[in-house]
């Protein structure tokens, strides 16, 4: 007969890290290289980019030709396993909430497929309340994080250019790739409207330097979302942090380990974590001198809220009652069209790096606008690898434009239709805004009092709504996009018919997958869960190093700051351990 038992490890690690994405990977890397013994728990599967390969595959290597599945919502070749919908791991929503929660379930997490857009925050981004009175200031400033941004730039590798922009600071950039054809057209069109277009800043090695070690330079296949198995030229936690750190011999990885709660002792200090191993569905406990959560903003707050004890009746690190609150994602809105001047274009390989070669940092002053925070613009287009969906909707295109000077009836078939596919290929163009939302106390995730997942862990219930600030920002995005499209003579094919009825095309929160704010840092222990070192105010050996610790998330993608803060917190842990404070 099966007996229920909890398998307790007698080993005490220096640190138990929950989650292996940007935050957890960096913590593991720094601590293991300092000689600490680490147990790294990952809720998803083991993954080795050197063996689990989708890079340089052809569309026909996928029976669904790259279409998405539940397991790979970004397509069959995408390197992120799982996403919106995980079997046996539900979450719930309050009435009226449209929240989508992305959960990568693999070693390295989302960093295996992310866009590599690596924007450091600027001085204003840490002090927004002082500027516009909304939200809160961070307990730290740009000067505190700058040294870590600098080191990460050099260590990991990022291309870009120093532009001397106040709130988009310079860094240590490798040379960027030249703009593609449509990007040159976008640059001219956007510049006409006063929108600044500069080389993008992506964590991809374009020029190998000594400190990059065995990693190589980009070979321009445009497939960073498949993870760079071949050259390790782009940043993923798996390729760049975890596998190199494993060489220290100081890390034990437990994959498929779904963490239930952080364990604490009578003094209220963390002693380790309990988890269920998905492979055998048995319960385990692992001990550590410190516990570091990096399970993603929402999952980390879920673990804390579920870690109730007599010393921490409201959940761990939650005397302030802020855990789960101030949840915010980037805003997002997009528009697409076609560039008639690119019809029947000359063919050449323009894969480039995986993603945009140019972007637009926020270029306006919010004091003169009816919304408080900015956004940046990402662009796409060109002759990309055909995949499922290629050619769809030709009947909406080939009747609208002359094909080689000939007026055709929409739709059709045969040799004439084949000519149309060739004629229109590579003429697409699009753009998307990614903006800063205002973190609000009433935008939150909490423990659902009625629902557990298949492991018996109480699940999260989301209550998130956009405010007029974000909606007005989306409206501004759409107006800007229309203008840029118009300037370059593009014909808008989608995303232009938005209005107040659909919040001007503003994506529902969660969709941009930049969640942050749920275990925020601050100087006031009544209004924040963590201090400025990502350390819990009321549990000194507990740290949270993912996006949860953010006070606000800027109009920048948050990964570079997660990495910088995790490095900073990890070095603080080492120094506190040396002082016997931990």
């Amino acid at each position, binding site marked *: 007969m099966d007996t229920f038992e909890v398998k307790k490890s007698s080993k005490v690690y220096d640190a138990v890290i929950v989650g292996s994405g940007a935050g957890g990977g960096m913590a593991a890397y720094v601590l293991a290289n300092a000689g600490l013994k680490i147990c790294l728990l990952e809720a998803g599967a083991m993954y080795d980019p050197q063996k689990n390969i989708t890079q340089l595959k052809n569309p026909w290597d996928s*029976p669904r030709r790259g279409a998405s599945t539940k397991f*790979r919502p970004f397509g069959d070749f995408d390197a992120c396993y799982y996403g919106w919908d995980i079997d046996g791991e539900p979450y719930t929503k309050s009435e009226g909430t449209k929240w989508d929660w992305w959960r990568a379930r693999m070693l390295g997490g989302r960093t295996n497929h992310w866009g590599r857009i690596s924007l450091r925050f600027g001085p204003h981004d840490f002090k927004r309340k002082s500027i516009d009175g909304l939200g809160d200031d961070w307990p730290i400033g740009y000067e505190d994080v700058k040294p870590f941004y600098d080191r990460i730039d050099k260590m990991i590798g990022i291309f870009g250019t120093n532009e001397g922009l106040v709130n988009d600071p310079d860094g240590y950039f490798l040379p960027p790739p030249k703009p593609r054809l449509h990007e040159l057209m976008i640059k001219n069109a956007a510049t006409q409207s006063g929108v600044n277009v500069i080389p993008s800043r992506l964590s991809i090695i374009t020029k190998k330097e000594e400190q990059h070690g065995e990693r190589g330079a980009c070979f321009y296949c445009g*497939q960073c979302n498949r993870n760079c198995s071949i050259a390790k030229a782009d940043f993923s936690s798996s390729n760049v942090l975890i596998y190199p750190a494993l060489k220290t011999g100081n890390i034990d990885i437990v994959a498929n380990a779904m963490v239930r709660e952080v364990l604490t002792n009578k003094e209220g200090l963390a002693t380790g974590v309990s988890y269920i191993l998905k492979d055998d569905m048995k319960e385990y406990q692992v001990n550590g001198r410190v516990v570091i959560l990096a399970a993603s903003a929402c999952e980390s707050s879920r673990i804390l809220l579920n870690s109730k004890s007599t010393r921490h009746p409201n959940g761990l690190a939650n005397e302030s009652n802020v855990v789960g609150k101030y949840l915010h994602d980037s805003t997002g809105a997009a528009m697409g069209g076609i560039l008639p001047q690119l019809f029947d274009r000359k*063919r050449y*390989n323009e894969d480039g790096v995986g993603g945009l070669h140019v972007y637009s940092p926020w270029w306006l002053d919010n004091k003169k606008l009816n919304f408080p925070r900015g956004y940046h613009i990402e662009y796409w287009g060109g*002759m990309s690898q055909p995949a499922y969906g290629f050619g769809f909707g030709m009947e909406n295109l080939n009747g609208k434009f002359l094909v080689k000077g000939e007026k055709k009836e929409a739709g059709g078939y045969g040799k004439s239709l084949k000519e149309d*596919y*060739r004629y229109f290929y590579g003429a697409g163009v699009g753009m998307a805004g990614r903006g800063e939302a205002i973190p609000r106390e009433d935008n939150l995730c909490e423990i659902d009092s009625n629902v557990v997942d298949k492991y018996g862990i109480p699940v999260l219930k989301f209550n998130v709504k956009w405010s007029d600030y974000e909606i007005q920002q989306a409206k501004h995005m759409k107006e800007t996009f229309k203008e840029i499209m118009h300037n370059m003579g593009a014909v808008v094919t989608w995303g232009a018919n938005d209005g107040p009825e659909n919040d001007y095309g503003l994506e529902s929160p969660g969709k941009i997958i930049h969640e942050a704010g749920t275990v925020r840092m601050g100087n006031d222990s009544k209004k924040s869960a963590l201090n400025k070192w990502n350390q819990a105010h009321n549990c000194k050996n507990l740290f949270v190093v993912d996006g949860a610790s953010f006070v606000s998330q800027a109009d920048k993608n948050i990964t570079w700051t997660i990495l910088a803060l995790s490095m900073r917190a990890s070095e603080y842990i080492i120094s506190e351990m040396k002082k016997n404070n931990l």
Partner: protein
Amino acid sequence: MDRRKSLKIIVTSVFASGAVVAGCNTSDKNAKTPKTKFNLDRAKEELEREKKLLAEPDFFTAHEMTTISILADIIIPADEISGSASEAKVPEFIAFIVKDMPSHQVPMKGGLRWLDMQCVKKFEKSFVDCSQKQQLEIVDTIAFPKKAKPEMSQGVSFFNLMRDLTATGFYTTQIGVKDIGYKGNTPNQWNGVPNEVLSQYNLSYSEKELKECINFEIK
């Protein structure tokens, strides 16, 4: 390998096991098991679903498959540049994709039957038994959404779907990729837009770009 030595992975790697199975193209010892054709990374649950899909009985009848093949070749026939849809195995792709995406099942099956009924009414035989001329006559009534008669609208929807799936199935094969002229998916050095293309569009790189961007010697 050094890395293997230092790896202390407590749990069996499900990703790795997936890759091992997927990588075993030569192991045909088990002739009964449907051959997995994956040379790309498949995780455990994912591979289970792939195997389940491949083991599923055919969704379309032989008659329906014949109809699909004829339609696919009407949509994408061979021309001076490339082969036909059936040469690119588009019907096989459609047979798979309706299993993978069940939302296509009813529109496809129902659309095929709708088409047959039109042919029976008009020519007293099913689509496949019609002459090529009759087949094209019917197709002409549903292939052009703007000028199709209102009573043919369901057929237009079906043909739009058939056109979409045929085109996607075709241009994602080796034949189709070559036809469309996609040149990428191969290691290279991106050196910017070719000069003749820049001048075609009257564009040029700025001095700043030329100075700052990565430059490769042209061999």
